[in-house]
Each structure stands twice: as structure tokens, then as C-alpha cells.
């Protein structure tokens, strides 16, 4: 497991966003910025005759602003569409296997940026969840964290059972701020991942010590009886 949480006093919070406002409200507020830019640029373009190059520049700017709005709208939709799992969707899944499979699939991507992607921890870690949703959430957090990791450093995933819970600790050295931070695609990806994990009943804690970012996810471990009782579904 990563021991980053025990260095210096960490800055601990449950979200990467400022306090006092829901993620949805924060994103809606963020949408105003590119929308205003788009409105103004189009108004100026139609205010009077311009040279062809100026129209082309305005259209390119508009396309860029639309791209930013699209990323925000997708994030808003992902957050607002989130719903609790239906009982019939729930099965027992081995979280450690899913973490390893997903990390293995991202190894070639990590290699292109000289990032060491490692998964450490004990097994098995059975949890009750919708498998497809869990796979998506694991991919989302690792994919986003990998995008944010400083080149040439390590992205470490720890997974272990503690006090009847599964603890997943994802930690990385934060690279330079991406364009349009804090509303870049990887940062929004983490936010959506947080909302998704919380819907699974997990607690999500973000800590930061200097440049080391850590996301800790704690969710209930499925009991031994659950993993072997047919009434609780098959062990996947």
C-alpha cells in the first residue's frame, strides 16, 4: 500500500472541488465561461463585415469553446444520470482481479510516458456491485490518474482488506496542470469516478502532500458467507 498518507500533515478532503457547492452546481457555473466566450465571439463576428481570415479564426475559436462546453456537458450528464444500482444488477466481484486486469490493459499507455504502474495488495477482495459499472469506475479512476501523473514517476494502486472493508489507495505524483484545469477531462474524470464510487456505497477521500496526490476508496467487503451462498449470486 502507499504510505503517502503518513508523511507530513496531509490536506484531506472528500472532493477535489471547493467546499459549499455541489459538483453539479460547480460544473454548471463553469459552463458559463466558454458559453459567454462563444456568445461574444459570434456576436462580434456578425457585427460587421470582416476579412475571411478573421471569420476562420472566429470559427476555430468557437469550435474550441464548443469542445470545452462539450466536456463539461458530458460530465454534468454523467453526474446527473447516476442512479443507485438495481438489486438484480448486483453480483459479487473480485475487486483485486478487476484492478489488475484494468491496470494491465493500461500498462502500454503508462510505458509511453515512462510511468511505473503497479498494483500491490492482498487478495481476494470480494465486493457486491454491478460488474459492468465497477469495471467502468476502475478504468475511469486509473485512466484519469494516469493522465495526471508526472512523466517518469509512479502510479501506485494499493488494494487490501481492513476491518471488514476494502481499501483501494491510488497515489501519484501530480504532473503539470492540464489545460483548462480544474475542468480538464482527467480532473472531471476523477470527479465523475468519485460520484460513481460513492453511489456504490464507497467513501472517497482525497489527500495531497506536496506533489503527491492520493485517492482512498473504502467500500464494504462482501462477507465469506455472501461469496459462497448461492442466494447472494455467483462469485465473479
Amino acid at each position: 500500500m502507499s504510505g503517502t498518507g503518513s508523511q507530513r500533515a496531509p490536506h484531506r478532503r472528500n472532493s477535489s472541488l471547493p467546499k459549499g457547492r455541489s459538483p453539479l452546481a460547480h460544473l454548471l457555473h463553469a459552463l458559463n465561461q466558454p458559453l459567454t466566450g462563444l456568445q461574444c465571439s459570434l456576436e462580434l463576428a456578425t457585427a460587421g463585415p470582416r476579412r475571411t481570415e478573421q471569420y476562420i479564426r472566429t470559427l476555430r475559436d468557437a469550435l474550441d469553446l464548443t469542445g470545452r462546453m462539450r466536456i463539461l456537458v458530458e460530465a454534468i450528464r454523467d453526474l446527473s444520470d447516476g442512479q443507485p444500482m438495481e438489486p438484480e444488477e448486483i453480483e459479487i466481484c473480485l475487486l483485486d482481479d478487476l484492478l489488475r486486469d484494468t491496470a494491465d490493459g493500461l500498462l502500454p499507455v503508462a510505458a509511453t510516458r515512462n510511468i511505473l504502474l503497479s498494483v500491490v495488495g492482498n487478495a481476494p477482495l470480494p465486493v457486491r456491485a454491478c460488474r459492468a459499472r465497477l469495471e467502468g469506475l476502475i478504468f475511469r479512476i486509473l485512466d484519469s490518474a494516469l493522465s495526471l501523473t508526472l512523466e517518469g514517476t509512479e502510479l501506485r494502486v494499493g488494494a487490501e482488506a481492513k476491518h471488514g472493508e476494502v481499501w483501494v489507495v491510488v497515489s501519484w505524483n501530480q504532473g503539470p496542470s492540464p489545460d483548462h484545469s480544474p475542468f480538464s477531462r482527467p480532473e472531471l474524470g476523477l470527479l465523475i469516478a468519485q460520484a460513481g464510487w460513492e453511489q456504490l456505497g464507497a467513501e472517497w477521500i482525497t489527500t495531497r502532500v506536496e506533489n503527491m496526490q492520493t485517492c482512498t476508496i473504502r467500500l464494504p467487503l462482501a462477507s465469506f458467507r455472501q461469496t459462497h451462498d448461492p442466494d447472494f449470486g455467483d462469485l465473479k
Partner: protein
Amino acid sequence: MRILIAEDDEALAKFVRQGLEGEHYAVDVFPDGEQARTAANEIEYDVVILDLNLPKLDGVSVLRQLRVKKPSLPVLVLTQRTRVEDRVQCLDTGADDYLPKPFSFSELSARIRALVRRSHLPSESVLTVADLKLDRVEHRVERSGRRIELTTKEFSLLEYLMRNAGRRVTRSMIIEHVWNLTFDTTTNVVDVYINYLRRKVDDGHPSKLIHTVRGVGYELSGASEPQATQASGSEVTE
């Protein structure tokens, strides 16, 4: 090639129509479900683009009724929702593909091409493009008679590209069909896997099969000049 668009947003329908007509499709637009259903039953369309939120008769009802009379007509559903469950419900109802709003025109166009292509293809166990062969049953790939070892993900990616040979596929389409995810990734995972595949499939062969369609995605084609380039004028690079 004739396309029916059932979309009640006038501005969106107009833009989509203009774009598709620019690609030489004949396009009919209907603003409500009843008109769309009647037209789809009376006229021979090649593809139907169906918004789910339609007045008079909703898209799901149109789709259900259409499936009874025209089970093989390719239908692409446009929707506001992206949850896995919504997608599954949509495909279960009989949609062939599913595109959430907001979308880009190039994404829509690529999906229509893939749908048209798929509807004319028999389900083959061995896919062949030029001297490249992929056996879906034996999980075996060879080029010019030489076996190529692929990981599971590389195999799925190559299979998807070969099923859509001669058509450009976007990164979103690849992520959705090969990785089974409904959101865009933040890493360049698709590009990295394409590069791995390229090394295994194309290196050492004078004729390259995997092409990059700049700004769109990729295309696997045995032709020296990929078809997508000719159709749309998109820039293609090796």
C-alpha cells in the same frame, strides 16, 4: 443511399441534413414519431436516425413497431442519456447503434458508414483484408501466411477494424466496442494500442493496412488510397 432522420429539433435536423447531403446521401427529415413511422414503413430506407424524445410517438415505440416490419433496417438512436443501462435497453429494443448528444458530425457520419457496411456483411468466421486474415473462431491472425501473435485486446481491436474495413472508425467507436466503455478516455489508450497493432501487422510489409484519419480516428484498408479519404476529403496519414 437514403436516410430517414426523425428529429424534432429543427436546427439540429437541418445541420445533420446538410452534412449528410454533402456526403451524397438522400435525406428525409420528420419532426415527430408518427410521421417517421409512416415514412419508414412506406419507403425503402438504408438507415434510420432516430431521436428518442419525439412528439406524438416516442422513439422507443417507433423502434419497436419498425422492428416488427423491418427487422434488418439499420437504426441509429440519438439520445440524451449515456448510462450503460440506457444503452443496453436501447440495443435490446432493436437499435443497431447508439449515439449520445452532444455529438460531432464526423462521429455521426462515421457511425452511419459503419452501420451501412455492417448491414451488407454476412457474419463470417474468417475476416480477410488484402493478405491479412483473422480467424474469429481459432483466434488466429496471419499476414502473408505468417502468424502474428496478439494479446486479447489487440485481437479485439484488429477484429473491429477488419469488420469495418474500408471505413473510418472514430476513437469513441473503438472505445465503445473494444473496451466496452461509454465515456471518452483521458489517456491515449486507443492510439497506443493502434501503434502496437501497427508494429505487429504492418512492419516489414511494403503495403500498410492501418491508416490514421487525422481528426477522426483510424481506418483499416487494403487499398493504397483509403476509401474514407475519397468519400469525405479527410486527411489520411500513415
